[in-house]
């Protein structure tokens, strides 16, 4: 019972439920994009990083090759390396826990952990969100995959439109400020211009290259675009911890990832 009184555990559980439910859309889109049930499940069990999973099936659905799907998924997983570095410094997991922690290192578990200031709470938040999302994400992927293959023609249900919406939904929280918007527009344009000239799947890799070049030469915020998909405090906006936290980081909170979220209480 004591565990449930921990704010990090409560935040972690609410994020697990909210995020776990997306699994339904992933499962349904996975089987309608041409993967079978077990391929869809393998992505949720082994790749376990929403953006990368959607990227993989998105490329396959568009007629791209397996290697292009792998390329897009891998490039989109790059940010998890940055998260891993932050979490390693924060939680210092030892032995086998390091390997387990790596697997559940995603946007949401990182956000839940780094949103806390007390080291014990950072640990509880990370593991609650990481394990909770892993379990629910996989359960709901299975539900979605079974429902999706029973639906018949995916276009009739607008499932291709659901995929478009899912990607825009993943992009949206990262568009804070003029630079991220400009990067998104440039990469969207590069994609549309490339589609008629190169095989399916390659326009996405061209856009990745353009984005990396912008990152290499620009002088924007160093953590641009690394905001999580879910704000861990969205459901606690009137809660005292939020105010405490906001106050904390105005006075030099060590974690730069929280900075773009300073208006998060709206």
């Amino acid at each position, binding site marked *: 019972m004591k565990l449930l009184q921990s704010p990090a555990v409560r935040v972690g559980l609410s994020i697990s439920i909210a995020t776990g439910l997306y699994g339904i859309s992933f499962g349904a889109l996975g089987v309608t994009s041409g993967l079978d049930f077990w391929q869809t499940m393998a992505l949720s069990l*082994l790749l376990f990083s929403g953006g*990368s999973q959607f990227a993989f099936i*998105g490329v396959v659905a*568009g007629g791209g090759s397996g290697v292009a799907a792998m390329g897009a998924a891998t490039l989109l997983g790059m940010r998890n390396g940055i998260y891993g570095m932050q979490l390693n410094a924060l939680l210092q997991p030892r032995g086998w826990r390091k390997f387990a922690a790596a697997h559940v290192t995603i946007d949401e578990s990182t956000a839940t952990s780094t949103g806390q200031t007390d080291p014990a709470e950072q640990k509880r938040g990370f593991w609650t969100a990481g394990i909770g999302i892993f379990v629910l994400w996989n359960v709901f992927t299975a539900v979605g995959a079974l429902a999706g293959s029973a639906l018949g023609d995916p276009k009739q249900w607008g499932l291709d439109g659901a995929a478009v*919406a*899912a990607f825009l939904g993943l992009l949206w929280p990262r568009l804070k400020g003029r630079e991220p918007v400009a990067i998104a527009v440039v990469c969207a344009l590069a994609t549309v211009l490339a*589609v008629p000239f190169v095989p399916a799947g390659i326009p996405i890799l061209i856009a990745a290259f353009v*984005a990396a070049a912008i990152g290499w030469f620009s002088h924007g915020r*160093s953590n641009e675009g690394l905001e999580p998909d879910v704000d861990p405090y969205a459901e606690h906006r009137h809660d005292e911890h939020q105010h405490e936290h906001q106050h904390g980081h105005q006075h030099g909170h060590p974690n730069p990832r929280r900075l773009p979220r300073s208006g998060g209480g709206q």
Partner: protein
Amino acid sequence: MNLWLWLLLACLLGYAWKLVGYLVPASLLRNPRTSRIAGTMTIGLLASLTMVNAVASGQSLALDARLGALAAAGIALWFRAPFLVVVLAGAGAAAGLRLLGWN
């Protein structure tokens, strides 16, 4: 079978990225340029994936009901709808437009 191969390789590389963060000395990845590229690439890839799914049809561009899905999702996000509602809005718009006869 070929797809399984690339799929499992993607899973392996995805885990490798995560593990690298935990195993390399922090100073290597704390380079601001590295984290900036990770960020801009995330934005660029998601923007590109959105467009590919909205207007690409194999190797040609097609303006169809998926544009309605893009608009509906944008409106839902503007009003701060949760992710699942955004996805349902996209599906609903595409299905609805097709029902009305716009491919």
